[in-house]
């Protein structure tokens, strides 16, 4: 293998690597020759991309179709106040160019799909999974297995993180860990559950470390091990991860949305299903009906912390969506009930639970768009989150 040489500027820039026996000139030239694809430029992708760029990885691909939002900045340190509203791949490219202009950045401002994944992955040595949803995680895994590329995995929830290296030198992959995804609704998303802002920083840095070790072919990677991190207990644990011989070979990409039966990403709490046992009303229609004298009982099914951020003064009761069955007897059966949450996903579940508790479907109304939709479309003076 013939490696590229370093320029004088690069030698100065990477001097702390060059004097390490484990990196040295050969290792740094390997990094310069390396090609890494990062899926997602959010909480995990933020530290990952900055450190890979700073470390001198020669070519970095970035896949993301999202736009920087103010609520991202609590943890997505790659982006900044000045890039709110900018495409995340553009914001990332600007930051990377400032950190290290020697890096070639390939931008893919599109959703990763079964149609484009193999084409996008093909040029890269290592793929790093920094996504926020199950369908893309299974897609990234399967595409890496088909193409024989290592998949550096990290995932987070509230105060807990997981990291591993999949499909590396014949090691286990994501399906060996979890053969199937959870059904929709059983696992809350970060948008719903919240996340400590520093948590993805820790897990993303572990992913960056593993990526660099794979590129350098140095050290012991997390292949065959699942690392668990609990920020509250400040405890790391390690579990063994083995290939599951009962699983069939992965030979083609499938329809991952269908496989997971979930919304495409964390942002979308709502899901439309046919034959729902309740009515749907969007925020504009609800405003008009309320202005016209409609007097439903208003049930807010968010958590208490969310209600502290913003609430409707005219809400009758706050009860988290998982607990509405327990209070069903307290709710009026002779009035319409308007149920709302942040965006409309949890309130739909609450409506279903109330229908199962015997409430008439023509009395139950789900506020599609939720309180955030109301803030955006009707009352911009209300805080959003």
């Amino acid at each position: 293998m013939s490696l590229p040489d370093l320029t004088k500027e690069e030698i100065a820039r990477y001097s702390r690597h060059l004097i390490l026996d484990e990196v040295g000139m050969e290792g740094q030239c390997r990094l310069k020759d390396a090609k890494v694809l990062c899926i997602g430029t959010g909480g995990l992708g933020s530290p990952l991309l900055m450190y890979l760029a700073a470390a001198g990885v020669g070519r970095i691909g970035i896949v993301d179709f999202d736009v920087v939002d103010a609520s991202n900045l609590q943890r997505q340190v790659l982006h900044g106040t000045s890039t709110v509203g900018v495409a995340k791949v553009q914001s990332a490219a600007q930051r990377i160019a400032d950190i290290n202009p020697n890096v070639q950045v390939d931008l893919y401002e599109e959703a990763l799909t079964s149609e484009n994944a193999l084409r996008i992955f093909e040029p890269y040595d290592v793929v790093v999974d920094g996504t926020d949803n199950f369908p893309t995680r299974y897609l990234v895994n399967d595409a890496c297995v088909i193409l024989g590329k290592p998949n550096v995995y990290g995932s987070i929830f509230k105060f807990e993180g997981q990291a591993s290296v999949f499909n590396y030198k014949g090691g286990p992959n994501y399906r060996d860990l979890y053969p199937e995804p959870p059904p929709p609704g059983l696992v809350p998303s970060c948008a719903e559950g919240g996340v400590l802002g520093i948590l993805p920083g820790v897990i993303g840095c572990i992913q960056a470390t593993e990526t660099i070790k794979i590129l350098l072919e140095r050290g012991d990677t997390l292949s065959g091990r699942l690392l668990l991190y609990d920020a509250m207990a400040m405890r790391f644990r390690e579990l063994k991860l083995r290939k599951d011989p009962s699983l069939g070979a992965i030979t083609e990409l499938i329809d991952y949305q269908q496989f997971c039966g979930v919304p495409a990403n964390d942002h979308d709490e709502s899901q439309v299903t046919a034959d729902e046992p309740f009515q749907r009303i969007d925020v504009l229609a609800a405003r008009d009906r309320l202005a016209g004298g409609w007097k439903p009982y208003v049930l807010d099914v968010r958590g208490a912390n969310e209600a502290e951020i913003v609430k409707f003064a005219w809400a009758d009761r706050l009860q988290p969506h998982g607990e509405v069955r327990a209070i069903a007897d307290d709710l009026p059966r002779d009035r319409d009930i308007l149920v709302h949450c942040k965006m409309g996903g949890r309130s739909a579940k609450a409506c279903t639970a109330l229908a199962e508790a015997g409430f008439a479907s023509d009395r139950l109304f789900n506020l599609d768009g939720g309180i955030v939709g109301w803030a955006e479309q009707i009352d911009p003076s209300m805080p959003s989150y």
Partner: protein
Amino acid sequence: MTVSIRIPTPLRPYTDGQSSVSVQATTVGGALASLTTAHPDLSRHLRNDDGKLRSFVNVYLGEEDIRFLNAEDTALTDGAELTIVPSIAGGAA
């Protein structure tokens, strides 16, 4: 045998917020049964309608996945530590 079961963050709402629950049991299946008897709301998160452990919920005895031991028949010794590790997907948004 007294064994402890570590409860991951996503399942703590169903164990009154406890991060660890101690039960008396001689097998992994027995320990999980004691756990869900004490915390019935946890049951549907651990098992499907057929009563099988869900495929996105892994249970470890020490560092080992019980799928590669004797599954739920795996025998427990006093002081054993079980860990429930469900699949989580967050990362970007």
